[in-house]
């Protein structure tokens, strides 16, 4: 992926935070479908009855979790992002309709992974955002994955956290406080809205002294922090939205929709409407190949600033 920078799995952040929470809160249960890693091992060794294994039966797992939630437990489900589509009708009817606070998370969201087109999911935000009552989040690194797990544990709403499947660059020095809108750079010419792996990529985009650009991470995809976004673009007058997600149905579409009522020029730097193929972690210039690298970010900012 990258040379000479610190990489760490968001997946590990999820696991570390969940174990820390489950050690103190006996209401937390973990519903798995022959899935999970360190956190599953922790439950198995320390709270076996709170590890609810359904076997490779994801549809069943979603509804089991809903029932446990209806009865006062705090169920967590972690599975491949793409499998949330397999559980979709169950999530919709049994979790979302009655707003049971099941905390879901999907990994291998994005283009990375050796699983190929079936496994590398770039449409999860699109289908999960459509569910009424759901709160949708995306982690930008190991530390923010921890933050989000802690946040959903006390949210008391159905939720979905999007995480990458591979080790990704560290953005934060330590675990940040939860914030739906997180600004790292304050500029005057354009705002880059981003989430997930694209936070690091956006921060690496070098504009020299030519452009003064805000870089804003939106870890809370739904409900969208609308007021903060509108305030921000009123200041800069232009926006680009960068995400390792299909151009259909993700943050870019959500912000474009919001800004259609508060018009400023907006450009999307997203994945095309494709199924991403197998990508090993050693592969170089992957974001460039998919048109979402720092070069495309710089190009998009230049283009959108001209339209102000």
């Amino acid at each position, binding site marked *: 992926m990258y040379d000479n920078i610190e990489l760490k799995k968001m997946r590990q952040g999820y696991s570390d935070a969940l174990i820390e929470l489950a050690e103190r809160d006996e209401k937390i249960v973990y519903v798995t479908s022959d899935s999970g890693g360190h956190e599953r091992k922790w439950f198995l060794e320390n709270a076996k009855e709170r590890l609810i294994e*359904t076997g490779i039966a994801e549809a*069943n797992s979603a509804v*089991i979790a809903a029932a446990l939630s209806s009865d006062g*437990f705090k169920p967590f489900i972690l599975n491949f992002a793409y499998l949330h589509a397999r559980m979709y009708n*169950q999530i919709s*009817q*049994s979790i979302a309709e009655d707003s049971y606070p099941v905390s879901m998370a999907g990994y291998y969201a994005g283009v990375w992974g050796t699983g190929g087109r079936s496994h590398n999911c770039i449409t999860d935000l699109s289908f999960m955002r459509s569910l009424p009552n759901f709160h949708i989040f995306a982690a930008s690194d190991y530390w923010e994955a921890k933050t989000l797990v802690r946040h959903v544990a006390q949210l008391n709403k159905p939720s979905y956290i999007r995480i990458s499947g591979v080790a990704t660059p560290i953005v934060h020095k330590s675990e940040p406080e939860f914030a739906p809108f997180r600004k790292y750079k304050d500029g005057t010419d354009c705002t880059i809205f981003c989430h997930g792996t694209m936070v690091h990529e956006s921060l690496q985009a070098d504009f020299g002294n030519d452009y003064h650009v805000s870089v804003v991470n939106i870890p809370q995809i739904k409900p969208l922090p609308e007021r903060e976004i509108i305030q921000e673009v009123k200041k800069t007058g232009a926006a680009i939205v960068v995400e390792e997600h299909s151009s259909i149905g993700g943050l870019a579409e959500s912000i474009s929709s919001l800004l259609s009522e508060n018009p400023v020029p907006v450009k999307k730097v997203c994945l095309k409407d494709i199924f991403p193929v197998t990508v090993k972690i050693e592969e170089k210039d992957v974001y460039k190949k998919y048109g979402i690298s720092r070069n495309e970010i710089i190009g998009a900012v230049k283009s959108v600033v001209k339209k102000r």
Partner: protein
Amino acid sequence: MEENLSLENIISACRANVIDILEAGAIGHSGGSLSILETLVTLYYEIARTDPKQPKWDERDRIILSKAHACEAMYAVLGEKGFFPKEKFKEFLHFDSMLQGHAEICTPGVEYSGGSLGQGISFACGLAYSAKLKKKKYKIFCILGDGECHEGQVWEAAMFASHYKLDNLYVIVDYNHYCTLGDVDEIMNLKPLDEKWKSFGWETIYENNGNKIDSLINDFRKLEKISGKPKCIIANTIKNHGVPIWEKEHIHIVSGEKLFDGIKESRKLLKNV
């Protein structure tokens, strides 16, 4: 015996309620509702512990209608039992009514919002597991349709219940032999249905008289004595039971003239009772 005569009267009252509800909605799932009336009356009046004055009483037994399209029967029994005023029947399918087109938790006494089939049994499994975790003694009852057993998720849940030895879980399969478009076994063969449940590790009874309260009570009493495994009654029932002209046509959803004819026939028969 006297008590069961009284249960027969309750069934007649509930059948009249179903008719009133269908009339109010001008459309509804008559077939699968009338086939499970005896099951619901047996549960709510004889087997399960519920309290209409405290629908969320923590120690109550939970009754899950996985085949949630049979909501007319659920509403008929809950209304008769006093979970809500029977005047509400008039609002069935009306905009923003608490009596929706599939059973949902907005109705007092309804434990699960269904519609898409195969999920209620998973929910029942989750509640049964939860009861064990909380060391509670209450039971979970779940009513499935026969056509619903075509859903793969039913068997995911069946494996789960057996794996975790959920002996606080009872499933009643309403084997009324017809799904929406015809004979359930011609659409997709379920036979041998009891053997399937047994092979998944469930204590299973095939009840030939699935519309007879005494038979159902006996089955539940037998199953109560079994521990260490989940329990299943395959109830051989008649779709649209008690309304002969609908029975003949195995009607799934009734409306229009056929609804009118059935209401007329049913009220005549109930008057004689």
